[in-house]
């Protein structure tokens, strides 16, 4: 589906690529220390950290993939933005951020080292490094696919060109450059995407007409989930709440270093707590540019999916082609490219930090100078880009990159979340328990995935639904992996000697005095805005019930 572009579109795309490189070059001289390169000097305001926090998440499939899911599953796809995001983001802000911040750790594996020791840190760092490279590869492949199908570029050229651009600006300016670009990308994503549903809705005849044209089963969040056979996802609400709303969501938003690293860059604890809260409002609004186009696609586009000319992923490109003229089209394509780049840059900068601090400094070269660590960070940013290019070709082999990505999260994020969660809130958890729990969680998810793929284990055994979709299987797998992690940690910890209380100070709830924060009016307090966010979340769920 090649979209014919005019000169204004090419100009907009060209300016974008130039701008991200200019930002990288400009910031190169401002990243001298490790703290600058890996944590942006811990100097970001709450707004910058908050927008970057959301932009880093707006990667691979947020725009194309979830719009496709909205076309396939209707409003059920909006769970990804509400139940599977808001409670976890607010929990991170109010309950977990103080521990991350007080411990002054550089990364999530770094926290696990302080709490549980080297073995757990090593395992989680390796798992996390693999996860970031695989996810960066998905972003890259998705970006290459968009450039190839929409602009007619060769897919190999698209992948190399895009990855080298991202590699250059992250290598030059580190996290500072990534965050700077993410804020720009955030605005471009919104301005390039919001116009699609606005024009689409006007063309359909407004919201009421849209509701009439889309089948009723596609317009509800919860009403059709009392039985798995009543909804297009083939899932019961318990699966949504436990798998999506709890494990995958909390695992991603509270322990995935890709997003948490952005908050670590905040200048003080209040900013670090405020950043996710600010992000939660924008996350809640994202269905406007992702889910709504999917629903509009249901109303105005011919049938998509298997057996038709286009896959579900073509919803946004088809709507762009249908409604946007020269200029806006270039802006829309730039929004997609910006989304993919921010996702990839987020993963690459997180990979560079975890590799340098949690693998290189911890096990290979403990005595190096700060300048050497910065140089290592730059080198492994480039290595990460090359590895991502290779994994992009792995992603190419999967029929649905969306399912591939969710599978990765269920395989690796869920066990890490189990360890961090228990470590932060249960003082009796021990280092040996954490290590074996993490290993058991990963083994459970990987073996479940392999057995179901090999058709040895019926998917209904883990999902309680004979017609479970791949997404439903991912949600349930995440739940079982988390449960296995927690059970093993608890059992092993009870059978091993407890850790001395003085070692837990600053790391565990109940033995950590919270730092005193400056007294500010209520409207500047994270908890007040978190409450407002929670109320908005409840209202949206009730309205679209």
């Amino acid at each position, binding site marked *: 589906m090649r979209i*014919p572009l*005019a*000169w*204004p*579109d090419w*100009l*907009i795309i060209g*300016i*974008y690529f130039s*701008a991200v490189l200019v*930002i990288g070059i*400009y*910031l190169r001289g*401002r*990243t001298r220390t490790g703290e*600058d390169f890996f944590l*942006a*000097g811990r*100097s*970001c*305001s709450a707004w*910058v950290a908050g927008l970057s926090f959301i932009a880093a998440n707006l990667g691979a499939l947020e725009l194309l993939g979830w719009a496709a899911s909205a076309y396939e599953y209707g409003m059920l796809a909006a769970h990804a933005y509400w139940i599977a995001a808001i409670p976890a983001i607010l929990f991170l802000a109010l309950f977990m951020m103080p521990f991350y911040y007080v411990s002054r750790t550089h990364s999530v594996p770094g926290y696990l080292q302080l709490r549980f020791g080297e073995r757990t840190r090593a395992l989680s760092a390796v798992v996390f490094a693999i996860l970031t490279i695989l996810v960066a590869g998905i972003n890259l492949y998705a970006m290459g696919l968009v450039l190839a199908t929409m602009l007619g570029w060769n897919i190999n050229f698209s992948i190399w060109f895009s990855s080298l651009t991202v590699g250059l600006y992250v290598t030059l300016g580190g996290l*500072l450059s990534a*965050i*700077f670009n993410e*804020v*720009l990308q955030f*605005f*471009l994503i919104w*301005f390039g995407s919001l*116009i699609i549903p*606005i*024009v689409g809705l*006007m*063309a359909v005849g407004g919201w009421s007409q849209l509701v009439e044209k889309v089948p009723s089963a596609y317009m509800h969040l919860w009403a059709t989930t009392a039985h798995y056979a009543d909804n297009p996802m083939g899932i019961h609400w318990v699966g949504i709440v436990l798998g999506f709303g709890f494990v995958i969501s909390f695992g991603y938003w509270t322990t995935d270093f890709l997003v948490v690293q952005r908050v670590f860059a905040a200048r003080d604890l209040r900013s670090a707590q405020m950043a996710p809260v600010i992000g939660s409002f924008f996350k809640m609004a994202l269905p406007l540019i992702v889910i709504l186009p999917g629903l509009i696609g249901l109303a105005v586009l011919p049938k998509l999916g298997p057996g038709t000319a286009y896959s579900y992923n073509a919803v946004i490109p088809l709507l762009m082609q249908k*409604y*946007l*003229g*020269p*200029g*806006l089209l*270039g*802006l829309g394509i730039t929004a997609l490219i910006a989304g993919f780049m921010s996702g990839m840059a987020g993963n690459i900068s997180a990979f560079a930090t975890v590799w340098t601090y949690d693998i290189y400094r911890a096990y290979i070269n403990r005595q190096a100078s700060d300048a050497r660590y910065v140089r290592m960070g730059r080198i492994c940013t480039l290595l990460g880009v090359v590895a991502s290019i290779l994994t992009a070709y792995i992603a190419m082999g999967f029929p649905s990159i969306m399912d591939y990505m969710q599978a990765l999260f269920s395989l690796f994020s869920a066990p890490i979340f189990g360890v961090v969660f228990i470590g932060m809130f249960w003082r009796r958890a021990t280092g040996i328990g954490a290590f074996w729990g993490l290993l058991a969680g990963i083994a459970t998810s990987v073996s479940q995935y392999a057995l179901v793929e090999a058709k040895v284990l019926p998917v209904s055994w883990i999902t309680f639904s004979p017609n479970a979709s791949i997404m439903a299987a991912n949600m349930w797998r995440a739940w079982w992996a988390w449960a296995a992690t927690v059970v093993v940690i608890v059992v092993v910890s009870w059978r091993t000697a407890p850790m001395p209380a003085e070692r837990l100070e600053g790391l565990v709830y109940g033995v950590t005095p919270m730092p005193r924060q400056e007294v500010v009016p209520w409207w500047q307090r994270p908890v007040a805005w978190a409450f407002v966010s929670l109320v908005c979340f409840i209202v949206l769920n009730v309205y679209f019930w």
Partner: protein
Amino acid sequence: MARGAIPIWLFVGVILAIYGIIVLIASIYVPEGHVVSSLGRHAGTAWGIVMMIVGGVLVLFFRR
């Protein structure tokens, strides 16, 4: 953010304003060989103006 660096908001403002101008011009003078619906042209014009205003406000507030 980085000490002494140009505020990110200024960067964002400049880019938005430039994009707004391009979108506005492209919607008023549609390039030859491209057909755009009336709704698409209206949308482009309005969106270009909105981007110019938002970009202009950011530049105004964060200029050094």
